[in-house]
């Protein structure tokens, strides 16, 4: 079956530009997560969606970062006025609902490699 897909796979942008990163979760997965992987910081959580709601945005590093999810499926992570420190691999993961005592496995996409020049 289809896994998590992300687009674009690579993105090169100039400092100050806005970028949008897309994630298509596994069909039927209501939970969706964004993480960032960088050399200096390792793997960091950014935001969690349950359906179209984001009950946990605690990992977003600044107000330049935002994300939305529509139709309980596709999610877009937007970075405004990109900075060089935003260069990283942005990973999306999805799972069945993981609240409470459940701990469903998160399945990751291949990531979007962002380079800000």
């Amino acid at each position, binding site marked *: 079956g289809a896994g998590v897909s992300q687009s674009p796979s690579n993105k090169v942008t100039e400092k100050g530009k806005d970028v949008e990163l897309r994630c298509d979760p596994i069909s039927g997965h209501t939970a969706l*997560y964004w993480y960032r992987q960088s050399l200096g910081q*390792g*793997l960091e959580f950014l935001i*969690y969606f349950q359906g179209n709601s984001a009950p*946990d945005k605690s990992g977003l590093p600044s107000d330049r970062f935002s994300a939305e999810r529509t139709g309980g499926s596709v999610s877009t992570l937007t970075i405004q006025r990109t900075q060089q420190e935003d260069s990283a691999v942005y*990973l999306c993961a999805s799972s069945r609902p993981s609240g*409470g005592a459940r*701990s469903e496995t*998160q399945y*990751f996409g291949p990531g979007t490699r962002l380079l800000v020049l």
Partner: protein
Amino acid sequence: AQSVAQPEDQVNVAEGNPLTVKCTYSVSGNPYLFWYVQYPNRGLQFLLKYITGDNLVKGSYGFEAEFNKSQTSFHLKKPSALVSDSALYFCAVRADPSGNTGKLIFGQGTTLQVKP
């Protein structure tokens, strides 16, 4: 605060030998623990998880992990390493057991190098 430590940046083993990749954790409450593997320019692939039950968890590709509550460890093991096992391995713990989000906290990763 919940945290995960992978004390070794790199582990080197010879093909056919057993391998261990170490992970220790700090959580309040019962830990939910995961191992993922990442091959170059790829996303993370799930290997195995411990939620409850038997301390020895078996996962994909012949890997297993042993949960040790007293030592707060969850080391990844394989009886006989393959060159194709060479990759970056991440241990992770759920940040808020029984909470409203399943977000994970990851260790820094351990590079496994298996030599022929």
